[in-house]
């Protein structure tokens, strides 16, 4: 995704002196609309692959459903009370299904590595000379990517959720649902700005792949993607809850299941907003500082 060969952003349409003149005449809104439209069209090229890929991403879930079924059987037989960390079986499966939705919002495949690559191969230069803001440009590209993804993925998602409707105990209250949606939107922003900040580290370290691997590892286990973080004992729970990772998968799912309510919910949403703002600033600052020490040569 986003490889340099295909020139995914179709930036040729916006470059050159003529382009500049047109853009200046039409105003900034048109620029952003054009970028969004180009990205949308570019993403729609791979819609078949998208749909199949989405359906396949549910396959590991089948294993999880059976694994947890076996675990809850054993727990029930041993203790007479089939709950794990406050989850009963249906909730646990529902949790895994819901984290798929969280991840559909918060995961940003190739964002950080793409930025780091652009820094390394010098492509980033074009954002220094053109009147287009790098972070805004990438954000629109991602929004387009996600919009296309949702349009295509809604089919597979609806199918899987329909088949698994038995694991859910019904829709939550409207306020909870609203909070969940707000948290999902913020998880998209958090995921984007967090990864963008990581990518900006490419200004300091030319090769960030091992750093990204460490991030990926931690985010996989401690965002709640692998298991609900309520399962973590004592100090681990405190540690993991103090990172922004939980807002990428765990938090929206737990909100939907009614695990977080009242004052905790308000506090959680505020902290999530705080992290979003923090990483918006962080991505700007790292970009600003990075550009200061960046030097580009050649055409």
């Amino acid at each position, binding site marked *: 995704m986003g490889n340099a060969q295909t020139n995914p952003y179709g930036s040729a349409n916006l470059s050159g002196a003529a382009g500049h003149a047109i853009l200046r005449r039409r105003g900034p809104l048109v620029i952003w609309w054009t970028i969004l439209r180009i990205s949308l069209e570019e993403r729609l090229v791979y819609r078949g*692959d998208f749909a199949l890929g989405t359906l*396949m991403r549910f396959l590991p879930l*089948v294993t999880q459903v059976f694994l947890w*079924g*076996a675990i809850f059987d054993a727990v029930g037989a041993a203790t007479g009370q089939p709950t*794990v960390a406050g989850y009963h079986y249906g909730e646990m499966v529902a949790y895994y299904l819901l984290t798929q939705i969280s991840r559909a919002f918060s995961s940003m495949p190739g964002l950080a590595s793409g930025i780091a690559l652009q820094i390394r191969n010098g492509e980033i230069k074009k954002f220094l000379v053109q009147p287009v803001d790098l972070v805004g440009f990438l954000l629109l590209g991602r929004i387009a990517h996600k919009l296309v993804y949702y349009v295509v993925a809604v089919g597979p998602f609806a199918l899987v959720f329909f088949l698994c409707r038995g694991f859910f105990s019904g829709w939550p209250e409207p306020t909870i649902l609203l909070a969940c949606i707000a948290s999902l939107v913020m998880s998209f922003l958090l995921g984007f700005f967090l990864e963008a900040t990581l990518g900006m580290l490419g200004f300091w370290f030319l090769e960030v792949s091992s750093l990204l*691997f460490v991030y990926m590892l931690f985010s*996989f286990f401690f965002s709640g993607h692998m298991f609900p973080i309520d*399962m973590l004992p004592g100090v681990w729970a405190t540690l993991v809850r103090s990172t922004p990772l939980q807002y990428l998968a765990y938090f929206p799912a737990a909100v939907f299941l009614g695990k977080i309510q009242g004052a905790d919910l308000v506090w959680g949403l505020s902290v999530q907003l705080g992290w979003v703002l923090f990483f918006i600033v962080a991505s700007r600052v790292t970009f600003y500082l990075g550009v200061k020490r960046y030097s580009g040569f050649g055409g």
Partner: protein
Amino acid sequence: MHDKLQPRAGVQRVHPSYLRVFLTFARNSLVRDMTFRSNFIIECVSSLSWMAMNLGYYLLIFQFTPTIGQDSGWGKYEFFAFLATTLFVNSLVQAFFMPNAEEFSELIRTGGLDFALLKPIDTQFLVSLQKIDWSSLSNFLFAAGLLAFSLFNLTYWPTLVQIVLYPLYLACGVAILYSLMIALAATSVWLGRNQTLYEFWFYITNFSRYPMDIYQGTIGTPLRWFFTFIIPLLIVVNVPAQLMAQPLETQSWPLAIFTLFAAVGCLWGSRVIFSRAMLSYRSASS
């Protein structure tokens, strides 16, 4: 390539020493890996930390449950032995076949396979073993440690029969996974680009990672049958793990015998698919 492998003038057929060719591949790969030593170390550390995290996850699960499945016999240390078996099989497949299967699809797409076809050696052998990813074997060592630790904590010791049969069944598991992988990669001849199919492989091997007894019920039982007898993914890890981690009396011998046939059958099937694919191959290059 080695002098002895070149067809000499006047000699129509050569019979290359497959072992020597393989050892040359292994040496070349090691030389390449050692050229970028820090990268090699980073890769080892990466895969080990991934494993450590996984182990942490299972430790966490066993905080809540005594066994996986009621009276299934898969307690904490039995399951760790199971995990070690998964690691053995996967690390071998990843070290020897994964980089090659990936390359194979690419060779078909780009037409680079022409060069492999021209070499005076079996093409399937060549494309299957050309590259060896030595860093994946770090997980093999990790698995050995984990298995020793688990066995030490188990209440019984495996008998000699079990210890002797274990490597054989590991080999069967590797053979089954290899066959599926190379067959999937060979389908690129017909499908052109099969990135998604390849991804499919990762998702589908997910099924092999847990004790097969967990697949029960109206959906689980047919699923278990399908992945045991049609696409024998479940027996890849389950049979050797069962053999090592469970007492001899509880072994399911019919399944163990079936595994031997399945391994041979899979290898044969992959050979057939590979040969068919080669017949349909039309070079993509000039």
